[in-house]
């Protein structure tokens, strides 16, 4: 258990509304990630962070923004939610090993988001 919590765990919202998902960790890990998981697509990286105020885009970043003002919190915002953003969202932290050759990720429990 890497002390990762996500909130909310479930959310239903309407198209066009802004939504913010929160990921909180208790162990001061540097790297944090947001993924979405959809049937047939597996886990796809949205954005990631390598430190406070240091973020970068992943594979499916369009329509999403992130912020990291504190080491322990990584926020994912959908500026104007669309039905295509209905998904399960996972946050993860990363522990690098073997001189950076490996990267163990620990995942939160997920947030199920439905956009109507």
């Amino acid at each position: 258990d890497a002390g990762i919590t996500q909130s909310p765990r479930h959310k239903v919202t309407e198209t066009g509304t802004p939504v913010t998902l929160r990921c909180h960790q208790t162990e001061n890990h540097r790297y944090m990630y947001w993924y979405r998981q959809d049937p047939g697509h597996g886990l796809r990286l949205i954005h990631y962070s390598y430190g406070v105020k240091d973020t970068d885009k992943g594979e499916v970043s369009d329509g999403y923004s992130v912020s990291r003002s504190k080491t322990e919190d990584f926020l994912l915002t959908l500026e104007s939610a669309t039905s295509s953003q209905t998904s399960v969202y996972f946050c993860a932290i990363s522990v690098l090993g073997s001189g950076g050759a490996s990267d163990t990720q620990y995942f939160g429990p997920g947030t199920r988001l439905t956009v109507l």
Partner: protein
Amino acid sequence: TQLLEQSPQFLSIQEGENLTVYCNSSSVFSSLQWYRQEPGEGPVLLVTVVTGGEVKKLKRLTFQFGDARKDSSLHITAAQTGDTGLYLCAGKSGNTPLVFGKGTRLSVIA
């Protein structure tokens, strides 16, 4: 773009049978990992392989990293209903984030 192809996508077997799932790529990875995900939960790491040709065993699960570090396999001996889940492989290369395959969904029937 690095891609990891997993096969089969779905697998349904009887308890006690053996099975192998595959993770293939045209790219070389410095390490490859296998995760298992159960419904309603996040993926959990099973193993990391780093050296080409490396074999690791975790009880009834055997993981192998290809000699060229482009592919990996997971073999389960005498499957049990508790092995049911989504198995994901993930590859690491350089400073880029992990790349995940789409997963193999395993169902073990009693």
